[in-house]
């Protein structure tokens, strides 16, 4: 874990949107899901998850309601709003284009003389 790369700024939000799009879940579950999907390749400072969640909620990309956790405690479940779905689609596209572009550049071979 210590060797896993730091996230690019703004990526955490994208990951949260994706994780939540797979089904409503509370904060800890979102973290577990991201780690599970990335097969442990990404480092997330656990506490940083929450300010990110609030920012997304503040922008109306996530909605939340209170429910009960698996250990019977009060837990806040997040789900994606319509605006969140749109944002996720758009950001995914942007990300793919960016990753593609960066990948293409980095894959370049030495030019022939």
């Amino acid at each position: 874990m210590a060797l896993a790369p730091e996230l690019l700024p703004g990526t955490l939000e994208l990951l949260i949107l994706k994780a939540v799009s797979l089904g409503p879940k509370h904060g800890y579950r979102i973290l577990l899901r991201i780690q599970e999907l990335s097969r442990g390749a990404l480092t997330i400072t656990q506490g940083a998850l929450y300010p990110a969640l609030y920012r997304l909620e503040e922008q109306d990309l996530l909605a939340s309601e209170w429910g009960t956790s698996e250990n019977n405690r009060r837990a806040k479940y997040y789900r994606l709003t319509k605006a969140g779905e749109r944002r996720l689609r758009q950001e995914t596209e942007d990300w793919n284009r960016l990753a593609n572009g960066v990948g293409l550049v980095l894959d370049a071979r030495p030019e022939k003389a």
Partner: protein
Amino acid sequence: MRSPRQLLRFIHARIDRRTLDRDMDDEMKLHIELHAEALERAGLAPEEARRRAVAEFGGVQRYREEGRDARRLSWLHDVVADLRYGVRTLRRAPLFTVASVLSLGLGIGANVAIFGLLYGVLMQPLAIPRPRELTALVVNYKGDLYSSVLHRTYLALRDAPGAPRLEAVHEADDILTEVADFHEYSRVEFVEGGFFSLVGAAPTLGHVIGPEDEARRNPVVVISDNLWTRYFARGRDVLGKQLLLRGHAFTVVGVMPRSFQGVRFNGSFTMAVPASFAELLGISETRNYVNVLARIDAPALRAAFSVPLDATYHRCCVAAEDTRGDVHVSLEDASRGIAHGKTDFRDDYRLVLWSLMGGVALVLLIACSNVGNLLLARGATRARELSIRLSIGASRWRIVRQLLAESALLALLGAVVGVLLAAAATRLLVSALPPRLDTATSLVEFDLKLPIMVFAALTALGSVLIFGVGPALRATRSDAVIALRDRGGERRPESRIVDRLLVVVQVAVTLVLVCGAGLLVATLRNLRAIDPGFVPTHLVAIEVETRGTAFEPAGIVPVHREILDLARTVPGVLDVGMATRIPAIGGRDVSFPYAVVGQRRREGAEVSITVVTPGYLATTRTPILAGRDFVDADTPAGERVAIANEAFVRRHFPVGSPLGANVRIDGLNGGEVVTIVGVARDVRLGDRRSPPEPMLHIPAAQAGKWPFLILLMRTGPNPERVMPVVTHALESYAHRLRIGGPQTMDDAFDEVLLRERLAAALASTCAALALVLAMVGLGGLVGFSVARRTREIGVRMALGAQRVSVVWLVLRGALAMAMAGVLIGGPLALGAGRALQSLLYGIAPTSVILLGGAAAALVGVAMLASAAPAWRAARVDPVVALRSD
């Protein structure tokens, strides 16, 4: 803010900071616990698992802070940024900003000023704790409402089974007060023991009158802040000092704060003593009327409590002949003060104030549409800036929000200017009120009461909605991107239709206001034109009363000649006379059943009696139309005589002469027959709308026992200078004669038409404001369109158009808008006139002449307003215009 949900969350976060913090803590705690459990399952010891979980979470405190910021500040941040941006853009367009702020300032100012009056007169609750609960007993006697009952009725109702706790306060009476060097008549209220505790007014010093004072008949008095200042120089040792009321010593036990002004509407508080002293201080049982008070919150409870009171009232206090009539008592809301006869002008002013409120709302509407038009024009010129921002990805809402922030800033500045203007205008108005209305002055005096501030804020907010939202939405419409391709010149035709519609509405609304003001001004003129039946200039009145003095047993008549002689000797006094009732000044309206000898008695008819001295009618310059005036020879020894007014003659002697006719007046000296020896011109006593009532003048020497007469003097050009001299002479003549209310007729006469004058003046101001604003709007729009069409005008002129036809081209547009406005406004003005009907006199609310005149004037002014732009259009140089882009 982007959505209602966000707004809710924002408000929630502001209100309920603690709940949100707790929710956040719960979430983080749960996270750590779940993680610790997971670590434990992976084989760590519980202690160690917990430690690791906390460590891996990172700084809890830091993330709490960040979380809080994410929640609350984003919205606020945006607002601050929008406002900053708004300030910058407004500063870049100073002319636009000043024009808008002034427009809004005038509109909002007029609204705040009139609302201040409306609130002060119609809405303001009494300055007591929980005024909403205050309830007063009201007697409905065959449709007439009375707020007072005899003291003995109160006692009966108080003990009625099922009655709520009732307290009473005697209608204040003027009682001779002596302390130190003071010797004057002051208002004294008589209160039941529980009155002060029911009202809940706390004293600044000492204590209030309580039940034990009433029970033990303690001669105690509670004085006002004002008396404390005047009699005792605000000394802390005032408690325990004594003052004499009608010669009886009373001990001061408390001082009330300045804010306490009793429980009556527009009332004032001077001092109070226990009710048990009423008789000692000269209030006979039959004159002992009280206001009955209770504290009941809910209207339903008031109705419920009224039932047993009404039943008891019918058992104890309703005369046999009234039992079948519609006579009831009920408990009614008194939170704004008990209605109180003469000083209660609320009903008189209700319609006037609400009409004015409607008028200023229309003025604000005009101001808003001016600003809206300016914003539309600005939106057009800023189209390129906005479309660039839209096309580089700014969200539409973001830009709308910024534009609205600009509007909100304008409204805020407008509100500030408006409140300042309102304060100045109200001060002006108060200084124009007659001096005698000093308590009313305190009602309308402008101060920044919370409700007025709230009203100003709401008005500003409403203005933003009216003038801001439309232009903001329009400027950011998605097809505004087209503007990028435009060369910034021509606006889309449909937006010009909106501009024109706004101006048409302005003209229509202005017509309504001008017509309304015209009706009120015509009413004032018509009322002024009515002959009052006397010459009101340079008259001074002083009330001379014997009640509560050494002269009381014999009344005023035996000494009235000496008083007249005394007044005659004062330099500057030309004529003198005395009467029981004087027009505009007041006095007492006494009427008796009567019959003209030789004619059938009219059932229930009564005739007003005014007792006058010889020379009174000469003093007022009321013409004697037939017969003679009273002379000194009309004494109790001579023939009983009377002078009728024209109304009396019209009723009883439509043909033939009334002179020599005999009239039997029941109740005058126990029933008397008088002979009519003269006919006097009708005099309008107060309100000039009501036709004069039949009246008989009776000479004072034959009138029997009267407690007072009003001395009236016609003076040289300086009545004010005569007043104190006469007062002084009278006081030295009879030290303990009661002298009251020296007043000039000029002041009193002003007061008679006060409501009409205020209504006419305020409505005219309103109409003038509307006219100026609407013409600025119309002129501005025409000017703008000339500026935009410079090229087109140039082409026309190059093609040979005459200057005249160019001027006509411009004027035609203005004329069309003005005419359309007049056509729409005409019916509205007629409707408004009808709503004002009860205020009008001598003019029909549908007066075609007035409406036509106003419409013609409006169209004329509209032409004038567009004359300057038309002139500019005519001077367009085709060569220059065609070269311009």
